[in-house]
């Protein structure tokens, strides 16, 4: 107590007291403030849908139609569900920049709140898969080995052994899965975006999806432990062959030129 009272006239004492007071009020407020979530009711929900509809009319309606019924430029969105919107807009694929074989991943232009509003609006048009919860898609608790087996059985044909991506017909492609958020992988399986087949829970149960996400997280993310040196893109023998020719044989030819250029001087006899 003596220490404290000795410092009560310290130049910073007032600041410390102020901070403590603010922390106390803030803490008390958070502790006792009425829970806003419990109040989330019909009106908040409909407000979100309203907002989503506004966003839809600006960013999506030109291709998908004013009521989401679809046009020649874009499919109907009735019944695609919130998960599809969260995936397409959340990975930047939608709104599309230009028509083509496939709409690629690009910079996300909506905030998550806006995406949620859009998703709510689309979900209101017809029943469809909803956005998964963190519990569903988190790689924690997944059976990685089982996920690997499922991945090789269901996904590797297009996405390669470890999800490096691959080519499909006519310029379409299965993208590289590195750096894709678990939530988006889950939604992609659930909704089957673009050229991908969908894997609803009846075909691939929730647990299997989680296992696949766990496997991808283990073999194709920045935490992947991959011994043996540079991966060369993980694309298999083509990149290995190219490397062997350029750096293997190339280096050896350079060495051969070097050795051949250094010759012993013949003795004059």
């Amino acid at each position: 107590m003596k220490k404290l009272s000795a410092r009560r006239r310290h130049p910073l004492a007032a600041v410390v007291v102020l901070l403590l007071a603010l922390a106390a009020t803030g803490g008390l407020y958070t502790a006792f403030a009425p829970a806003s979530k419990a109040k989330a009711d019909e009106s908040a929900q409909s407000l979100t849908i309203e907002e989503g509809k506004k966003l839809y009319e600006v960013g999506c309606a030109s291709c998908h139609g004013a009521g989401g019924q679809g046009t020649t430029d874009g499919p109907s969105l009735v019944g695609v569900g919130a998960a599809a919107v969260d995936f397409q807009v959340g990975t930047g694929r939608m709104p599309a920049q230009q028509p083509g074989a496939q709409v690629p991943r690009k910079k996300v232009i909506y905030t998550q709140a806006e995406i949620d509003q859009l998703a709510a609006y689309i979900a209101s048009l017809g029943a469809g898969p909803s956005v998964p919860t963190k519990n569903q898609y988190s790689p924690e608790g997944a059976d990685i080995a089982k996920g690997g087996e499922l991945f090789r059985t269901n996904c590797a044909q297009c996405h390669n052994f470890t999800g490096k991506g691959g080519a499909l017909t006519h310029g379409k492609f299965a993208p590289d899965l590195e750096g894709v958020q678990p939530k988006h992988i889950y939604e992609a399986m659930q909704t089957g975006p673009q050229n991908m087949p969908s894997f609803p829970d009846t075909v691939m149960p929730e647990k299997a999806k989680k296992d696949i996400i766990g496997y991808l997280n283990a073999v194709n993310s920045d935490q992947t432990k991959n011994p043996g040196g540079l991966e060369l893109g993980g694309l298999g023998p083509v990149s290995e062959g190219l490397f062997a020719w350029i750096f293997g044989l190339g280096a050896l030819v350079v060495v051969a030129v070097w050795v051949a250029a250094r010759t012993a001087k013949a003795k004059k006899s």
Partner: protein
Amino acid sequence: MSTTASNPTRSRGKAPAGEKLADWADGRLGIYSLAKANMRKIFPDHWSFMLGEVCLYSFLIIILTGVYLTLFFHPSMNEVVYHGSYVPLQGQLMSEAFNSTLHISFEVRGGLLIRQIHHWAALVFLAGMFVHMMRVFFTGAFRKPREVNWLFGFLLFVLGMFTGFTGYSLPDDLLSGTGVRFMEGAILSVPIIGTYISFFLFGGEFPGHDFVARFYSIHILLLPGIMLGLVVGHLILVFYHKHTQFAGPGKTNNNVVGMPLLPVYMAKAGGFFFLVFGAIAAIAAIAQINPIWAIGPYRPDQVSTGAQPDWYMGMAEGLIRAMPGWEINFWGHTLVLGVFIPLVLFGVVLIAIALYPFIEAWVTGDKREHHILDRPRNAPTRTAFGAAWIAWYFVLLVGGGNDLWATHFHLSINAITWFVRIAFFVVPVLTFIVTKRICLSLQRRDRDKVLHGRESGIIKRLPHGEFIEVHEPLSQEQLYTLTAHHQYEPVEIGPTVDENGVERKVKGTEKLRAKLSRAYYGEGNQIAKPTVEEYKEITSGHGHH
């Protein structure tokens, strides 16, 4: 009696231990006469003559590392549950072969490095043989007396391809299993006997339980054994024929100019071995190859995109991918032309490579020995053939990797396949024409240099105002080097009617030979090299050049 009385060596004291050992060995192995005959063997110096050494050394590296791998590999297809240290596969069912390869990669000390050296060295070995063969082809080193050695080398290349393929299949991973399935499909496409061969090879339906063990003995015993014998034969023939050399002053068809085997060449070659080993080991330490743990164990119901063979089988892959999926059905039998035609083409191409030296010898009708190498430009038609073949091969490699070209260059895979189908026919022809023209223009340039000298870049103004460029005459050595090559005359059929007016029957092969000969050496297919008279006339006359 005469030697023991007054032995001069005895007086100089005891012979050193090395000499004693050598004497001992000579008494039993006759090494002195062997050494006397071979120690001063001359090898010419040129970097391209060392490409064969790259192959030899990488072959040795493959054998050394391969022996280490056999100590830990279990060539068995018994199913086991994985309990090793690689978490994403724990609890999975896999064959013992795959399990032991994982064990080599993760638990055996130095196992992964040795595996990677083995595999990288195999890729370099095949690439080295490819380039070595091209060197021999483009310089005409396959001509008499070396045709048999060309065949030995060719066999080494083909056997190397299949040794590589069987080795790639051993770990029984999803990638190589797809490759084996591909091979099974190719075998099945052979009419009548295909099914029997497949059942014989796999011990029943694919994949069965036998192929890893069978491929294992083919991969480590049968094929390398034959290859080792061929390598020895190849080297003996190199010794026997002596090495070829490029034309130059002092170099004739009857001598070899270079360094003696001992000590110079032996030191160089020995050092080069360690350089090759070092380079391959460095690559194996830097870059991953065939990460089977990421690929997963083979199961016939699974397949991945990006499933390609190692590069030397890329030609076969390209043929299959580019070929339309034709098939003929009759009387309940299917003839899968989409697979069978590529298989036949693959064989035809290989046979054509093997036979080329004999074809060219037949066209030229040349029975002499050749120890002086051609400069590629001086054999335009041969060079054009070679270049066309390489271009064709590259087109097929593009076809074999069409999916990666599609994803990396944002192209349509269908467009690439169609490009390959057209380029398969068009690109070799274009390459042939362009290469031949380049060779001919290089010949013209050589002729120009011999007759008028080298352009010095110095512009001189004459008193009457004319500007001329000063040409420096070439040295005697350079003149010799540029004009040393032999130029063939095209073969003529000769008169078809003899002096009595009796018609002689000209055989079809004779006509073909004359036609080919004209294509090789006829007018417009080579530029006549300057004669001594031409040279004298130009250099002695008006000296403004």
